[in-house]
């Protein structure tokens, strides 16, 4: 075979291998992505019924109190992840990282296990566990305090944001712990020993040895957790049975997108919400890239 034939064979092979991906990707990712820009400038009543409205969707959106409510709720949840869930995950990883600890593997498996259930099934379990009277949570509180009145706490309707954050702790602390644990295991042992010889206490070691080497993974986990939190949907959707709850106190951005697009049929308004969310997420990712770059320059 001449070199030319071999070359042509290789190029043919390359394109044959790429075809399934390129086809599916072009049809189901690139095309809808382009369409979402057009859709955002239209109003629809179900699919296939576009009426051009220009920038009206975005104007309506900015003046829409329910949308702002959903943004507020979503950010409360995201801040809960950032300031409660991730510190707990890190603390748990620190506790499990000690090399002499017995039963480390078992603990790791137990803390990680809720992740296996999957968000939808956790939502169902959460909805049942936080039920008035029959639910696990209220029965446990009433049993511990010996006070029947706690059976009546209305978690699902009245305190839905707290319920969401509590369930997400159970679900995600162990999951994020796995990342931190992997990062902690890459901390240089000789550096730790050197710090110990230099008389650094636990806090000193945490600040000067552990923190710098965990930082890249930490920024990654923070970004991942923010991206996930801002797209929260299944948990409140199932807890509140597809409504936003009283005064929309549990409505999230993606739930509002879903309500507009699929309950009311306005795919245009839904796309506009999708774009606002996408811009928030991309801004977050850019901030993270900037921060990582700055770290690399400093290092």
């Amino acid at each position, binding site marked *: 075979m001449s070199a030319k034939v071999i070359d042509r064979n290789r190029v043919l092979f390359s394109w044959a291998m790429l075809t399934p991906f390129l086809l599916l990707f072009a049809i189901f990712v690139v095309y*809808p992505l382009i369409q979402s820009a057009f859709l955002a400038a239209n109003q629809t009543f179900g*699919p296939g019924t576009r009426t051009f409205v220009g920038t009206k969707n975005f104007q309506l959106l900015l003046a829409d109190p329910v949308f702002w409510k959903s943004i507020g709720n979503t950010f409360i949840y995201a801040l809960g992840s950032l300031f409660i869930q991730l510190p707990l995950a890190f603390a748990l990883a620190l506790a499990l990282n000690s090399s002499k600890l017995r039963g480390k593997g078992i603990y790791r498996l137990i803390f990680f*296990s809720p992740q296996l259930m999957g968000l939808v099934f956790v939502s169902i379990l959460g909805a049942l566990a936080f039920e008035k009277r029959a639910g696990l949570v209220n029965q446990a509180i009433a049993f511990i305090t010996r006070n029947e009145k706690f059976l009546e706490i209305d978690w699902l309707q009245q305190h839905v944001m707290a319920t969401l954050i509590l369930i997400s702790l159970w679900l995600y602390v162990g999951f994020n712990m796995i990342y931190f644990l*992997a990062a902690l295991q890459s901390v240089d042992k000789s550096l730790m020993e050197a710090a110990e010889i230099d008389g650094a206490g636990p806090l000193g070691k945490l600040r000067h040895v552990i923190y710098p080497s965990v930082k890249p993974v930490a920024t990654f986990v923070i970004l991942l957790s923010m991206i996930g939190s801002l797209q929260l949907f299944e948990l409140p959707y199932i807890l509140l049975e597809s409504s936003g709850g009283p005064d929309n106190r549990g409505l999230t951005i993606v739930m509002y997108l879903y309500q507009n697009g699929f309950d009311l049929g306005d795919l245009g308004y839904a796309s506009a919400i999708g774009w606002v969310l996408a811009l928030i997420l991309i801004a977050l990712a850019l901030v993270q890239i900037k921060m990582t770059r700055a770290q690399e320059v400093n290092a």
Partner: protein
Amino acid sequence: MSATNRKLNKAALHTLLIVLAFITLIPYAWLIIASLKGQDDFFSGIFFPPGEGFLGIGWDKLTLNNYRALFDLGFEVNLINSIFYSAATALFATFICAATGFVIAKHHFRGRNFITLVVLGALIVPPTLLLAPGYELLYDLGLLDTVWGLLLPLLAPAFGVFLFRQAVIQSVPDELLEAARIDGCSEWSIFFVVVLPLLRPMIGAFMLITFLGMWNNFISPQIVLQTADKQPLSVAIAQLRGVYKTDYGLLTAATVVSVLPVAALFLLLQKQFISGLTTGAVKG
């Protein structure tokens, strides 16, 4: 630090971990026991219904009726759907991502850089942005309420291509490919006989992640499928809650049935799963 101090610390650490482990595990126990209780026993005792039996528990009050009722409603159809959708997605998405990742990592042809760039760019597109236009597209193609409409959009994840590209760069040396070519291997047999075996850890991890992802996927089937007989467990269980809101026994039984297969799969393949989960992270 003195030795006694150290021992005290250790004891405190263990106590704390045991308490936390306990809190993590209690909901499972509650879930399983609740699925075995009759409707009346939900308000008497947090866990087991009280009675005359061993440990003061009414063992005779436990029943499999909830599971019977569940399967009388045809829940096994949804179970089979979930298995089929998850397995099909895992299989095809893994193959497509491995093939694409390999080619953009190792083959030189015009357009390669562009494709790589597009794949990397697609990583920042939030999937929620594609919900509305994706739904309209499936409507235009006549694929709403079909299995194709559910599966096809999920078979080409850019994330998977990225992972396989990294795996190929890390574990498939150029020299090996050249040697195979000199031995007269065709490009196809190089991919299937040389490359795929080298990628086995990544294939295992990615298949598992994709399988679980599809098993737990709610929003896609919720939007695409309307016929009850086509729904996977995730959507079926949410609808079950809509209809039988206060039938705690039925709902907990449905949750147990939905979660058990995946938990078993995980315990079998634990190692691959954890390694797959952290592949992106450690390097990131």
